């Protein structure tokens, strides 16, 4: 039996004007377990807290109920006060008789009656409270960043600058990501490579940063502060230590017909390749599917021409196992497949391209060396049509329901750059809305319209049809003038929706990080914890969390880094003691709890038990209290009641129910 003290706060007149606090005190004295009750004008004041301290000493209290404002206000205050008095802080419960009572009821009798019942429920709960100890777990002072685009690079640099080791895992042969494929960036029209390359070099040169390119995360175990990750370094077939990056192998490679991924498949590359000139590391990889040596066993040209002797056909995938305290996901995006959008003739005509393809065409290192020309016949276009929201803001199931956010701005950029460089080209943009919320964004868009004479048409394009003359017939509507538009265009550019990189799903599963229906990673809280995953120790950087442009990505990358640094700076983590706890003798080992745990906190162990004299090995649930956040989903799934939640146990909640219904 507990010895409970009940403290009823007046909150000035906030409570006392509506609730007869004296009566609550008198009624509480009759409750089982209560051996002291008093009221005070301001329990949260130092003097009020002293009341608790004194009463604990005088009456040898083991539990405390404070009838006051919401626990969201002062639960922590009173727990600390109890701790000062030598009690376990979790022996305190709050009866919320202000927000849930005095402030919403006018009649004193009624409010007093309710206050008594709320206090009674709190007393009933405290009677079953047990002291809880916050646990501790260690923190490995090393971070893993998954993805080597601008988000991953920036996060890694920020974490490394704070003095922590960081590993970047990038699945392609070079870091740089999507940003390295861009030509110019809005709204300043900086050259993308010019601002990205220094960042890449900085990351590569940073003594605290270790980059694994052409590598993937294979397996993740552990939990916040103590993850263990297997990284698969795919066989490059080139010894990175020996390679000088001279590029001769690529020149001499006889297999040159592989689609160039970096140029979005608009041209081809050799079987041994670096994706782009500024690649980091500047070490090629052999595409074993394309390599003649690997396909037929004959060839070996690259090995012969390599002065450094770096070619290593026998190289195997290598698994590196490393421990991390924090993991940042920065897996980025890709454009959606356009198979569902036959009306735009993307698959029929080479002159219908995505905006990202246009970036490559506009880029000096691209398939056309930066000349704007039709891919079908190499002719310079005169009439260009941009179609917005291809697959974005889609109400049917063909595309994405969300706004891809960046398209309005990059289309304005493209239109402006084309009009600037090729003033004879007419540019028409079909749009649903033009969305330019961002610093200098609307000004930028207006310049495109006003200074560069880009023709913006509010309306959607119903069909793009290749014509026998090689042109494209664009059929659209102008909603403002309410008329149909038929336009012959030389090129059509589709502002294709972006979606999270396909590999993110597998990564999210490994991390037990939740993912939404669009494969974007979910935030711990959409407003207040936007760069954290609900899974402790996992942070989100860049487009893997939601569509965003470069400055937003960089900002979020920094924010994610700060969150990771905040974690790594700690030597030990204090864990929430209100976690799930299985009764090992009742556990069936059925795995249902593990199936609903959003944090992967439940694992199973074959364990020897002594169940009242019956000794046997059983499959038993184990809760990792460092991972468990205390939601309680497992407790309801457990049919035998083996799984219970400390601080909100079945019997505690039932005691509250009973007290209220009494």
């Amino acid at each position, binding site marked *: 039996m507990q010895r409970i003290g009940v403290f009823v706060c007046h909150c000035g007149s906030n409570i006392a004007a509506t609730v007869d606090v004296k009566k609550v005190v008198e009624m509480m*004295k*009759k409750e*089982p377990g209560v051996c002291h009750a008093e009221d005070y004008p301001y329990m949260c004041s130092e003097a009020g807290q002293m009341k608790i301290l004194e009463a604990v000493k005088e009456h040898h209290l083991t539990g405390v109920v404070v009838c006051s404002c919401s626990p969201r206000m002062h639960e922590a205050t009173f727990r600390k006060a109890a701790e000062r008095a030598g009690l376990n802080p979790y022996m305190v419960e709050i009866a919320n008789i202000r927000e849930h009572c005095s402030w919403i009821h006018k009649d004193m009798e009624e409010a007093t009656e309710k206050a008594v019942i709320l206090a009674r429920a709190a007393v009933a709960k405290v009677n079953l409270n047990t002291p809880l100890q916050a646990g501790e777990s260690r923190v490995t002072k090393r971070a893993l960043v998954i993805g080597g685009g601008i988000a991953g690079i920036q996060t890694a640099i920020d974490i490394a600058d704070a003095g922590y080791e960081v590993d970047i895992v990038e699945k392609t042969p070079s870091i740089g990501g999507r940003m390295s494929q861009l030509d110019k960036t809005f709204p300043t029209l900086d050259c993308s490579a010019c601002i990205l390359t220094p960042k890449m070099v900085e990351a590569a040169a940073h003594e605290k940063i270790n980059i694994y390119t052409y590598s993937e995360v294979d397996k993740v175990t552990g939990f916040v502060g103590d993850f263990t990750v297997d990284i698969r370094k795919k066989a490059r077939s080139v010894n990175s230590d020996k390679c000088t990056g001279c590029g001769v192998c690529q020149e001499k490679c006889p297999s040159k017909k592989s689609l160039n991924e970096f140029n979005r498949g608009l041209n081809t590359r050799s079987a041994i390749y670096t994706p782009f000139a500024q690649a980091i590391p500047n070490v090629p990889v052999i595409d074993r599917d394309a390599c003649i040596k690997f396909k037929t066993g004959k060839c070996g040209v690259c090995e012969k021409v390599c002065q450094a002797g770096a070619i290593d056909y026998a190289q195997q995938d290598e698994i590196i196992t490393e421990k991390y305290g924090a993991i940042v996901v920065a897996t980025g995006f890709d454009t959606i497949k356009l198979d569902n959008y036959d009306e735009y003739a993307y698959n029929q005509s080479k002159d219908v391209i995505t905006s990202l393809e246009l970036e490559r065409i506009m880029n000096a290192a691209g398939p056309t060396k930066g000349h704007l020309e039709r891919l079908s016949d190499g002719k310079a276009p005169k009439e260009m049509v941009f179609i917005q929201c291809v697959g974005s803001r889609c109400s049917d199931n063909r595309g994405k329901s969300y706004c891809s956010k960046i398209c309005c701005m990059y289309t304005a950029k493209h239109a402006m750059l084309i009009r600037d460089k090729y003033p004879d080209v007419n540019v028409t943009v079909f749009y649903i809305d033009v969305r330019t919320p961002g610093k200098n964004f609307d000004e930028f868009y207006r310049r495109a319209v006003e200074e560069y004479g880009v023709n913006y048409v509010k309306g959607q394009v119903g069909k793009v049809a290749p014509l026998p003359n090689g042109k494209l017939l664009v059929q659209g509507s102008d909603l403002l003038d309410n008329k149909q538009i038929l336009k012959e265009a030389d090129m059509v550019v589709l502002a294709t929706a972006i979606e999270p990189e396909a590999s993110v799903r597998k990564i999210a599963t490994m991390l037990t990080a939740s993912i939404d229906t669009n494969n974007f990673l979910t935030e711990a809280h959409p407003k207040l914890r936007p760069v954290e995953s609900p899974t402790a120790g996992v942070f989100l950087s860049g487009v893997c969390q939601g569509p965003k442009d470069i400055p937003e990505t960089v900002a979020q990358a920094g924010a994610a880094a700060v969150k990771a640094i905040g974690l790594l700076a700690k030597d030990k983590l204090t864990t929430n003691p209100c976690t799930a706890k299985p009764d090992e003798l009742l556990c069936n080992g059925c795995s249902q709890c593990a199936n609903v745990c959003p944090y992967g906190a439940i694992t199973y162990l074959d364990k020897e038990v002594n169940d*009242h*004299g*019956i000794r046997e090995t059983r499959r038993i649930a184990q809760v990792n209290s460092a991972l468990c956040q205390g939601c309680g989903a497992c407790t309801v799934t457990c049919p035998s009641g083996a799984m219970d939640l400390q601080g909100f146990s079945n019997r505690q909640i039932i005691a509250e129910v*009973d*007290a209220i*219904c*009494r």
Partner: protein
Amino acid sequence: MFKIAKNNLPALFRKIKEQRELYLPIRAAEQVNYGVYTEDADVALETLKTVKSPKDAFFPQSETLYTCNKEENKWSITPEELQSQEFVVFGIKGCDVKGIEVLDRVFLSEPVDTFYKARRDHGILVALACNEPEDSCFCKAFGIDCTDPKADVATWFVEDYLYWNPLTDKGNALTEAVKELLEEADDSKVKEQQEATKKIVEKLPYMSISLDGWNGDVLTEKFESPLWEELYKPCLACGTCTFVCPTCQCYDIKDYNTGNGVQRYRCWDSCMYSDFTMMAHGNNRNSQMQRFRQRFMHKLVYFPANNDGMYSCVGCGRCVDKCPSALNIVKVIKAFSKEGGEK
């Protein structure tokens, strides 16, 4: 001896009910159990075996003993009132009458169970002889004559009449109360039927079972028999056999939290349950084999050893009918008979 026409029975029931609560077999949701007689009750007196035995009338499945209540910091304890009104249990078969005799041995010996005694003192048993015993019946093995039940009143259904024969003072008092509905009768028809029924009894499949080998000092021999290890295996550890049994008398005492105190009640318990006689240190029978053995050893060895050789099985056959795994006391008896040589 008296008799009353079958079609006049509702009048008899109404008449009894005027002064005394009446319990008799009632069909509800397709099952027949003893229940309180009401005008619209579907009385099923012809039923040979109710699902539950009539022991509820004296030893209810659950009954409150007393209630503790805390008010204004003061505790009050209110004992439950004892039975003080007379009541009638109508239609009880020979085996079940014997079952109540078994319960009497337990509850009326020192220390006397006051709740049980009050009910026994106020209860009048009107027994009904069997005339179409069934395949699961084996009362004869326990020396019970199902054609001649010994209760406060014995009755027989013969043709269109219920024959009525008071045997005790209580029976006479009840007869007196309903006399206006009864007519005098001679017992020749009853005797005729008794003979016929006895012939049927001889043909029942369980007629051959014998309790030889269960009497005398057999405790150690039976307790240590390896047969139990085989016999118990299909047992699901449910309480069906216990709860339909007319003689099982184990109960548990529990407290129900009323919010302001507790209601202390007792309820039937089953030795088949894993928490039967659970104590702080655990359970003294922690395997189902031990619990299974306990049930039958109690019925056939321990109880008779303490009660002048009276077995605490009456051969009603309810466990034979109801066990989900088709286990029952007959299979146990037969298994041991086989062991000691084919009987």
